[in-house]
């Protein structure tokens, strides 16, 4: 928490990093809790992606992903291991976004809808969402997480680096 006070654009970046960290951290905690408190509902949604056929693996994914999301969100919110948490978030978000896109394309093909009219519950914790909104939101989160990985978001971080 000590160091040189950032000036000019660095100050803007610092506050943007803090605001973004809190926003993304809060969002992850909220979405993770929604899913974690209804694991059966989330299990059914994960199943629709046909990622795995082995029951225990499917159960393990559905049982752990929401709580892992809450954990990463809490780390980002508090500013603990920020780059590591952001990289973990990136590793979750990027493949998930591809899966959501793939699923949306399947629905679009089946229902013969315009792409942005496709609306479904992607298992994100927000209920049914329009695919274009969801993709935009995920891309924003991916860009922000990548930005944090590069070393941003130190403002008011409880322990920015895990290993000092």
């Amino acid at each position, binding site marked *: 928490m000590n160091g040189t006070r950032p000036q000019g654009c660095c100050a803007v970046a610092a506050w943007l990093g803090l605001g973004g960290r809190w926003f993304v951290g809060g969002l992850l905690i909220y979405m993770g809790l929604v899913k974690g408190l209804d694991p059966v509902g989330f299990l059914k949604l994960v199943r629709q992606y046909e990622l795995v056929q082995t029951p225990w693996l499917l159960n393990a994914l559905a049982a752990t992903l929401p709580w892992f999301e809450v954990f990463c969100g809490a780390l980002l919110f508090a500013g603990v*291991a920020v*780059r590591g948490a952001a990289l973990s978030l990136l590793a979750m978000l990027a493949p998930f976004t591809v899966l959501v896109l793939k699923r949306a394309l399947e629905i679009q093909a089946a229902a013969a809808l315009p792409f942005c009219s496709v609306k479904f519950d992607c298992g994100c914790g927000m209920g049914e969402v329009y695919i274009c909104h969801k993709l935009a939101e995920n891309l924003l989160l991916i860009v922000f997480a990548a930005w944090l990985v590069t070393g941003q978001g130190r403002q008011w971080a409880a322990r920015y680096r895990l290993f000092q």
Partner: protein
Amino acid sequence: MSADFKATDRAPGAHGSGFSGVLLEAGVVALVGVALAFLANAVSPRGLALGQDYFPRANRGPRAAVTVTNVEQVTAVTPSTGGAEGDPVAARLAEQNLVMADLARTLELFRDPRFGQGKIVFVDARNDELYQAGHIPGAYQLDYYRAANYLGQVLPACLTAERVLVYCIGRECEDSEFAAILLRQAGVANEKLLVYPEGFTEWSARQLPVATGPQRGMPEVTP
């Protein structure tokens, strides 16, 4: 409060410096996060049983030994919702060797005097919240995903019944089918089992009798 910009973040040789440091940090976050996530699932009363197959399929496990030979059951395959061809729900039920009941058949069973005598049993495969918000009067609850909590009460009733009709929300909901398979695996004869795929959505939309709360709320027997 001020931003913390340390030059040592990228100092060579520093523990966790550079991108390898980020990777290491991410690895620790992932390990601790996954461990805590498993712990959270284990302590949560709503946690999933990791070893359980929640979605039984026809190509996994034994198919029902009993085949449908009863005329009454054959007629219970609803023409109104279509046959297996072109109807994914009908096809799925046929694949599971389960017989489908339409609203007319469900109402016939509901109004049958044997319903009040426990010879015809309705099973609601939805969760507590949905069951308590409204269910078919007299229906037992069997939340398929928390089956152990309900089987003690539901199974004896199903074993002694002549007919068991299982329903859930309707259409896209597969839980009635899974609950029927579970009952079959628990010893309920397949020829007794019927699945009402349109479920509570259709029932309530037709403004048919509904009971609320955790009690079954047996309907009055009408002649």
